[in-house]
């Protein structure tokens, strides 16, 4: 029983990280109709920048957090402006392939800029252990679950009540009509890229906090895929919740079926979800008109 609870809690913690990155996928998909295959790499760059700030400037939590968020915003904006915007109006295949090309470039750029060794992000917190009854949990793991829930609420409110949020939904629903209503689709896209980069970046920093930075971290992006497919590619909140589900599934599969299963549990889930309900639990069904 305790083993099960332990698995569930660590599953929730890693699932929250997947959820954050999956929300990054969904934010971009919702406003631009693209799957950003470079999400994992963008997450990783933000985490590495956070680590660089913590080792060179200051290990203070607020400095690191502010620096990482700023870096993530810049990263998102630069990529949108330099790489994605010229592809506006091109077929989806071409734009998605561009994000794949971008992913490969960013991945090797990280290996060149930083080294190939694992690093721990040390900002003086997150690695302490809290005891809940008989179960020990890292504070970083609790913090990431709390952050995910907070962000879920904030994003729900943003899309529901704020003018910009409604504009983003409008662009997602029908970009031409949105343009006619005076919404700048390019600005909305830029905003989406920046927001997605920040949300996923937060996930990356938490990952670095609880586990370690390493060049294999881009795989987080691949792990977050199942989450966003499960939740629905166009459902931002659903993707967050999908992350938690995938995290738990993965940990249970790893705990009871063997470590090989842990690696592929998420991918096996993708195939099942796509067969049964391709638009995800919370996503909207695509209706094709001739």
């Amino acid at each position: 029983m305790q083993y099960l609870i332990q698995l569930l809690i660590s599953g929730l913690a890693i699932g929250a990280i997947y959820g954050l990155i999956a929300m990054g996928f969904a934010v971009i998909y919702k406003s631009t109709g693209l799957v950003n295959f470079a999400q994992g790499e963008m997450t990783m760059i933000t985490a590495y920048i956070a680590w660089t700030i913590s080792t060179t400037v200051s290990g203070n939590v607020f400095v690191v957090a502010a620096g990482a968020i700023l870096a993530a915003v810049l990263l998102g904006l630069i990529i949108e402006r330099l790489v994605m915007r010229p592809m506006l109006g091109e077929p989806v295949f071409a734009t998605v392939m561009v994000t794949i090309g971008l992913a490969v470039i960013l991945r090797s750029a990280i290996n060149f800029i930083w080294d190939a060794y694992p690093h721990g992000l040390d900002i003086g917190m997150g690695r302490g252990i809290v005891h809940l009854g008989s179960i020990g949990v890292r504070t970083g793991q609790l913090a990431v679950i709390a952050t995910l829930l907070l962000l879920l609420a904030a994003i729900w409110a943003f899309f529901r009540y704020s003018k910009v949020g409604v504009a983003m939904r409008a662009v997602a629903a029908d970009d031409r009509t949105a343009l006619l209503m005076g919404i700048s689709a390019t600005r909305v896209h830029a905003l989406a890229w920046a927001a997605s980069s920040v949300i996923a970046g937060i996930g990356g920093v938490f990952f670095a906090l609880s586990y370690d930075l390493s060049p294999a971290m881009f795989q987080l992006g691949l792990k977050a895929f199942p989450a966003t497919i499960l939740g629905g590619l166009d459902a931002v909140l659903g993707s967050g919740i999908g992350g938690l589900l995938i995290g738990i599934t993965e940990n249970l599969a790893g705990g009871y079926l063997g470590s090989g299963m842990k690696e592929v549990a998420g991918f096996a889930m993708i195939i099942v979800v796509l067969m049964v309900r391709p638009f995800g639990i919370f996503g909207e069904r695509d209706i094709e008109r001739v």
Partner: protein
Amino acid sequence: MRTGDYKQTYGELVALVDSPPVWLWSAVLLLALIAAPFVLNSYALSFVIIILITVTGALGLNILTGYTGLISLGHVGFLVTGAYAYAVLVSKYHMPPLVGFLGAGVVPALASLIVGAPSLRLKGLYLAITTLAFSFIINTVILEMRWLTNGARGIQVQRPEILGVSFDSDAAFTYLCLAIAALTLLATLNIRRSRVGRAFVAIRDNDTAARVMGINLHAYKLFAFVTSAFITGIAGALYGIYLSFVSVEGFPFLLSIEALAILIVGGLGSALGAVLGTVLIVLLPEATRLVFSLFSAQMDATFTTGAQELKSMLYGLVIILFLRFQPRGLVGAWHDIKRAWVHWPLRY
């Protein structure tokens, strides 16, 4: 001199080549490739072998992604299945290499049915993600089935001896790869001009319209998957033989990206494009290294230490630049040049 497109019968519209000079140049290329082992040193010959193997694999992906318009991000999965099928059959159970090659085609083809079946309901991005998932699952399956695949230890593969002919030397192995690549090229060209190929292209261009015209989407999509996986699997077996060692690490995910880069660079949906793209993509890292080494020895050193990273960076750059500036690929550029040449000084 070609003075126009004179198509007078329906047969001419689907002819394998539309003018005799193409036969001549193809024959010249074939002779040059046959002469290659006698002329080139072993380093240059290794590039010829890699190009021939990669062409086979790229043509396989071209059937699925280029003709039928189904994006596959997991083609390395078929490659590795083919390589393992060959290695297990030949090295472990000591079957004749021809049976090994047959298995290298059939096993990925069966696997493609498993990926293909769910993907019949999916299009575009969703399919890309399914195939991506497949390529990761297949790696785990291979690592877990230790009794058959030796798990992470991999399998040694010898160069084959087929019908009494030994392909042990590099020259002989080049001929084996050349024969398979040429056969694959002929096969894909013939598929493209047959009823099946036209159905593939119809599905790519508009699947709803294709269905209305009486094309069985399920059957043809699955057929595209099976054919593509069969060819890719054989390329995988050749690659495994070339590496002389089959392991999961020998087939990194980057190969899937490389294959897509080849199709984009060459021009999607064209066999000629797959060939041109392969030549460019395979030679690109080497060419870049040569250019850099002209500038300074230090840059050359960077290249040897970070070879893998620079290679993937180049692939990424090439993909982005081609999609941005030449979306029709090298084939498109070639058509533009031909047209300019014929019509000069008129525009058209």
